[in-house]
């Protein structure tokens, strides 16, 4: 998909490298405090709940619901500007952690707060799979 290839390729920082390695295997992980179990995303240096600096990456189920959503009509990036209008949401995962994500396989104006969504993986450049979210289909179609 040439459009997708032109979208920005995220920088793989050392803190986020395990996340991208998991995504490449189509697994969604978030950071978990090794001391108190508090979940967070993206990677942070310290746990805001207990101040521990020890953390690990933990798998999450990849299902959740739309917590909030906006429809972007202008974008600093030319590839996204060409796609506008498109929806970007905050997804509340079943485990409680929130992730900002584009919503795919759905019209920009068909995304609503409370909508059930699940993770999908979008190729981004030659090396990366970017976790994004799409509506859960009633039939539970395989991803």
């Amino acid at each position, binding site marked *: 998909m040439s459009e997708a290839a032109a*979208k*920005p390729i995220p920088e793989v920082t050392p803190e986020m490298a395990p996340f991208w390695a998991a995504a490449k295997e189509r697994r969604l992980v978030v950071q978990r405090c090794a001391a108190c179990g508090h979940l967070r995303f993206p990677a942070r240096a310290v746990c805001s709940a207990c101040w521990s600096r020890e953390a690990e990456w933990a798998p999450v189920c990849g299902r959740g619901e739309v917590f*909030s959503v906006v429809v972007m009509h202008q*974008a*600093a990036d030319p590839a996204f500007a060409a796609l506008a209008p498109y929806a*970007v949401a905050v997804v509340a995962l079943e485990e409680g952690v929130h992730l*900002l994500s584009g919503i795919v396989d759905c019209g920009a104006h068909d995304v609503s*707060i409370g909508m059930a969504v699940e993770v999908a993986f979008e190729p*981004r450049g030659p090396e990366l799979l970017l976790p994004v979210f799409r509506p859960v289909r009633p039939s539970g179609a395989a991803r």
Partner: protein
Amino acid sequence: MPSHPLRGAAAIVGLGITPQGKVYGNSAIGFAADAVRLALDDAGLGRDDVDGLLLNPGLTWNDMGMGSFQLQQALGLRDLTLTATMNLGGATAGAMIQHATQAIAAGLCRTVVCVFSDAPLKPPSPKTGKQSSGAAYQFSRGWEGAHGFFGVNAMYALIAKRHMHRYGTTQDDFGRIAVAQRAWANRNPAAQLHDRPLTLDDYQRSRWIVEPFHLFDCCLVSNGGLAVVVTAADRACDAAKPPVWILGMGQGHPGGDPAETLTSGAPLASRTALPMAGIEIADVDVLALYDCYTFTVLVTLEDYGFCAKGEGGPFVRERVTGPDGGLALNTGGGQLSSFYMWGLTPVSEAVIQLRGAGGARQVAKHDVALVSGNGGLLSTHSTLVLGREAA
């Protein structure tokens, strides 16, 4: 109850506003210097009277470290006993004035100039004829940019959408705030959109920036500078213009996720500021609320208790906040319709109204003003209570 030691310890005696908006050929530091000069002229003071300089640097100060020192050198100011470069976003103006007042009350200095300036707008390109505000591209390598999520507009839009979902706030509610403030701006010749009337239909037809925000939900972008002179009570009585007394001040920085709380730092900041000033919210004549977005005004009205939490929508539906209504709210047009000098925009309008210098937009009762500042994503907040009388 004895009066708080900071109440009336200092006053704003000078206001300097440079030309605002699409003003080219000047830099951030140049606008700051112009604003300081204008403010001192307004106060009838000279550079030798200044012993404090506080700077809130706008975005285009980015490469200049120690900005307040750079400004001191540019202005040739000598022997300052207080200076700082401060940034709490839109809450900085209130925090600068608080910092100045505390230092003055403690005897550390006497006369402090607080200044903001920025120059993000570039002249139209000869090629495209388009204006550039040098849109922030810095997110594009990160997680947000990968998902096509860009800029502060979108971040606030996520919070506004939650408010609509949880409380039933409508698009028209946001629109009414934009329309009311524009009507005020139409009475303010210094406003960037002075000559541009706005109806609710115009608002609804204006282009989307990021839903649920139309163009007119978002503040302007301005080149310019703005400064105020804060001085000790004994000196304020000799100033060229009637002093605007600093009666109460407070800060509130709630932390957490504003998309969940839908609440600014106003409840926390006002808990300090209102008792210090010895007033209730009902005593306020002039409201100057920080308005990076229409939504911010709505939330701030709730958070100061003008209505219950979540009832900002019905409140602006029922209470007309424009010139013909009962609430003198953002009477210069605010940052939505006059100019975007961060927290000093509402400070400047409160000073103008308390002085009775509002011209066609002057409100009849103008003894006490409430000024709010808001920065980040409802992250930082400052409250000032200003008054015509010191006691």
